[in-house]
């Protein structure tokens, strides 16, 4: 309501003139009813000399303006207080956001460092285990090659053997060597083994068709 009044404020003089001329004082330009006049202006009926001049209407306008300003003055403190709180909360949120961004950056940096250290540790551990495995399998005649394929999750040691096909009892020394290496593993490192007997491949198959492309040769007879 105050906004509406405010918007129509500039034309209120015209409206007042129109109402007074056409409805209240159409002919004599004097108010016909004291009650009507009183109802409009909340003032006693003026004398004839005090017929609604712009000064009197100015009073009415002031009353209207006061009414228009009423909500603002009435709730001023609450609104100001709330706005202040919102501003301080907004500032706190901004500060926390900046701190969070800074912390996240720091965590990322530390995480990268931890990854590097873990990766080095894992690589060193896998290298040591491979070395121990090679010491055993290099003495087994059927073992021809050893490769290592590492992923983020697991390191797989591939042992390429050349032995009579599908005679699994001959593989026991290889399995024993793998168990020995696994029993040495104390860290949370995932180590897997794979054995490939070249004599079990079909004519059109090559070991490279089966071994992962990222596998690195670490020993060959």
């Amino acid at each position, binding site marked *: 309501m105050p906004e509406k009044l405010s918007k129509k404020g500039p034309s209120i003089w015209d409206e007042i003139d129109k109402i007074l001329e056409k409805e209240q004082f159409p002919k004599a330009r004097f108010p016909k009813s004291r009650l009507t006049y009183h109802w409009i202006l909340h003032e006693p009926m003026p004398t004839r000399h005090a017929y609604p001049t712009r000064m009197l209407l100015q009073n009415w306008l002031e009353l209207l303006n006061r009414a228009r300003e009423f909500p603002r003055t009435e709730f001023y403190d609450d609104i100001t207080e709330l706005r202040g709180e919102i501003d301080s909360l907004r500032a706190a949120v901004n500060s926390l956001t900046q701190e969070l961004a800074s912390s996240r950056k720091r965590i990322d940096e530390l995480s990268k460092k931890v990854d590097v250290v873990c990766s080095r540790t894992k690589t060193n551990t896998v290298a040591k285990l491979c070395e121990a495995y090679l010491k055993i399998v290099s003495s087994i005649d059927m073992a021809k090659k050893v490769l290592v394929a590492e992923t983020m999750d697991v390191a797989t040691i591939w042992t390429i053997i050349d032995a009579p096909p599908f005679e*699994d009892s001959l593989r*026991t020394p290889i*399995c024993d060597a793998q168990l020995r290496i696994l*029993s040495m593993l104390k860290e949370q490192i*995932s180590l897997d*083994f*794979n054995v490939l007997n070249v004599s*079990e491949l079909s004519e059109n198959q090559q070991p490279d068709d089966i071994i992962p492309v990222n596998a690195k040769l670490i020993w060959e007879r």
Partner: protein
Amino acid sequence: MTTPQFHSPKDAQFHILKAERSEGFYAKHNMASLDSATFNEWAVVVLFYISMHYIDAVLSQDTSLPEDLRDPTDHPTRNRAVSQCSSLTSVGSMYLNLYQRSRDARYNRICFPNDFVYKLEKISFKPVREYTRKQLGLS
């Protein structure tokens, strides 16, 4: 046919039930007689799967093992558990062979000859099954 009641969390009884149920599947479909023309690689997979549950049952009872090895959630962890479980020392290499052959069956495109399932049963599966069942107090 009744629905088996599996234990939760996974304990020895859970793994024994799973192993025996898979054995029932293996026998019902006469998988020992499968040859390369009738997809004998799946018989190899089932033999490994039965063994794995018997192994898990034994591991779950070994209180000397760390928690992650008593209830392994992947094959590398389980293999490590087998290597560190003193009561499985005598069948460890046979179990690893079954593991290797199940991988050959699933991923390595190895075509098993006709008599292979029978040989695998004899060399690796039966020793693991009999030994682990004995460890578990089963007949």
